[in-house]
């Protein structure tokens, strides 16, 4: 097998093995209901993780997405409460702000040659702070359009539902895969991850690509905020704390190298599903503390980082012998 597919294959194998174990213990878990809920419950995380995958593939990191999700949620709730705008108009506004915010961070990262970690960390505080400025309290969304959207779903055989937000996540993943592997922008993202200097010498438009990557991540964080708002029917400035870290975990478990340049958007979906599966298992068990989710994800992450290190070691060793 081509070595670049090995981490992805490992992710898929772990997911299948984990799912098989779950089913052995709780045969009920093999139902479209569970799968439907898995998609719905992780929709906002999945959408944000697609953006994170692009950022990490390019060799960067985006710590601001949790805060942007919270900001978007609060923004939508506050605007809907205080104006008569239609939710769809507010959504477009929110997406615009989130995209601009991402683009601005990308521009700072590129033009001021600042590390993405610092810039997006500042972005995280800024977005979270702006959410507090809009409202300290949880603002409920009571617009009837929300109920309409929530009632919209596709019924799977067996009683499961692909909700609007679950379906949206799948669409975002499909679009992400297409962009990553079948467009020049996608190739440029991988190129940046392979080495910015080299990519520049090869004629990759580094400035444009960097800004586009963070704008894309911002856009998807905004979309994730909308999905989160639909999911919870409220906007709260303390929501979605640490989602960026969950997204990073999903990307790494999905087989993408944290150093950039290698990985697959599709892998991130599996990463999300693995994390969701652990949660579902704990719900089914009923007696386990939900902190076991974190512990297991931590162990998985550790395992994956060890595996990546191992691959690097092996490929280097192989070359040394050659």
């Amino acid at each position: 097998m081509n070595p670049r597919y090995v981490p992805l294959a490992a992710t898929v194998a772990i997911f299948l093995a984990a799912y098989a174990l779950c089913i052995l213990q709780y045969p009920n878990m093999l139902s479209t209901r569970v799968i439907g809920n898995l998609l719905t419950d992780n929709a906002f995380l999945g959408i944000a993780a697609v953006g994170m995958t692009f950022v990490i593939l390019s060799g960067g990191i985006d710590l601001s997405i949790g805060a942007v999700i919270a900001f978007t949620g609060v923004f939508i709730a506050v605007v809907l409460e205080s104006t008569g705008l239609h939710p769809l108009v507010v959504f477009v506004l929110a997406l615009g702000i989130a995209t601009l915010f991402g683009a601005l961070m990308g521009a700072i990262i590129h033009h001021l040659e600042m590390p993405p970690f610092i810039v997006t960390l500042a972005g995280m505080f800024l977005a979270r702070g702006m959410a507090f400025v809009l409202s300290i309290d949880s603002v409920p969304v009571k617009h009837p359009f929300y109920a309409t959207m929530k009632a919209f779903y596709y019924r799977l055989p067996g009683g499961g539902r692909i909700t609007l937000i679950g379906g949206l996540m799948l669409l975002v993943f499909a679009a992400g895969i297409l962009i990553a592997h079948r467009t020049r922008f996608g190739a440029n993202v991988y190129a940046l991850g392979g080495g910015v200097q080299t990519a520049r010498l090869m004629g990759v438009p580094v400035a444009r690509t960097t800004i586009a990557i963070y704008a894309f991540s911002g856009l998807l964080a905004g979309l994730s905020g909308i999905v989160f708002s639909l999911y919870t029917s409220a906007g709260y400035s303390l929501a979605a704390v640490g989602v960026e870290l969950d997204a990073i975990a999903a990307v790494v478990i999905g087989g993408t190298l944290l150093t950039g340049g290698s990985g697959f958007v599709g892998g991130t979906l599996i990463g999300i599903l693995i994390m969701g599966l652990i949660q579902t298992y704990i719900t089914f068990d009923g007696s386990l503390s939900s902190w076991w989710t974190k512990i297991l994800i931590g162990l998985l992450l550790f395992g994956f980082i060890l595996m990546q290190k191992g691959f690097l070691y092996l490929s280097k060793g192989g070359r040394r012998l050659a």
Partner: protein
Amino acid sequence: MPGNTFGSDDIILSATGIDKVFPGAKALNKVNFQLARGEVHALLGENGAGKSTLVKCITGAYRRDGGRLVLDGADIDPRDTFEAQRLGIGTVYQEVNLLPNLTVAENLFLGRQPKRFGLVDAREMNRRAETLLAGYDLDVDVRAELSSCSVAVQQVVAIARAVDLSGKVLILDEPTASLDAHEVEMLFSIVRRLKAQGLGIVFITHFLEQVYAICDRITVLRNGQLVGTREAAALPRRELIAMMLGRELGDEIKAVARADAAEGPVRYRFAGYGRKGHIEPFDLEVRKGEVVGIAGLLGSGRTETAEILFGAEKADSGTAEIDGKPAELTSPRAAIRHRFGFCPEDRKVDGIVGDLSVRENIALALQARRGWARPIPRAEQDRLADQYIKALDIRTTDREKPIRLLSGGNQQKAILARWLATNPEFLILDEPTRGIDVGAHAEIIRLIENLCEQGMSLIVISSELDELVAYSRRVIVLRDRAHVSELVGDAVTTAHIVEAIAAGEKQGAA
């Protein structure tokens, strides 16, 4: 083709009166350079002569401060390498500038992937990549990641990309530095083919044999000024070197009267020293004031020998003695405590800390030996830096300049200064003259001889056999990660070394 008599129609690229000023230095001063169709034109000069700067002005990596650039009859002013590429000037650098994490085909077509229905058509891209590489007699899996290919193949891919992209002028910036003889020949056959297609090729290298093997004309720069452009066939090597150095190299690289250190006592004795998978156990004795050369082909275990002596790799067999007393050399720290020093081969990776200043780079090893709890006073650091900048003639505007801005030879000298600052008694130099120019070669060799006269023991690893022979009293020959032969005194000649390597070759085949 007669030398300077190309008709104006034959000239594909003409640079006239190129100026480039850096803060504190005039890098190029009214340099003229003419490249004809179907010629290979060597661009030579010492480190810091302005070769790279000129090339960067031509490829748009730098904006020139003055002068005209005419490509194919039209004035050009490329703002970046991308624009130069589109205009027809392609460049291939010493370190392969492709992306190791992409496939061969993706590297070839990055930024100009064939599209179908608005999306990248990977199948078409792979097909075109195969066709393109077939023109270079290169049979590789274009779907494989570039990092899985050998450096030579990567180099050819880089050339194929540059030629396919640009097609008028190809600039080869030290393309052979990391290739072996066979690979160089492969590269040259490609260069000859491109030359026959009418490309103008600029060839930058430090290997003078290669210049004579492939180049039609030679342009020499020195200190940012044009020294001259000459027909290669009509320019004796001696004269070329004189042009490059601005002085006669004369007998600077002649065999020196080797100080007879044979009488002295053995200071360092390694017995059965080795590490599984790295280097077979070997015996090595080094006397005070002696230079021991280590020769062998690439991958024969030269660097491994150095690493194990310095404790960078732990020996798993054998013993080390210093002045008759057993010594534990289990880590570089331990080795430094025994007054060992080690200048590694790949200074970019293992040696310099690019963003630190020349002063900080020089003080690094001494500081490490003192321990971080006892910082070297700034005045002392300044004194050290100034002393070595002067002693080794490190060319830098001042000691606070980040070392990455220095040229290769000067970086090498700074690393040497780093170890000399610790007053080592046993110094290991791995390829001290790799990638630096002729003049710096001579200086480094002179340094080695001086150090040895001062009573330092040196181990020098080099693939430049002439040099090894010049300064070594003994030469150890390596092959297949084992020490196969030791030449002493008058037996130290290039012929004998080659013979010893070849003899191992035969044994290996038997």
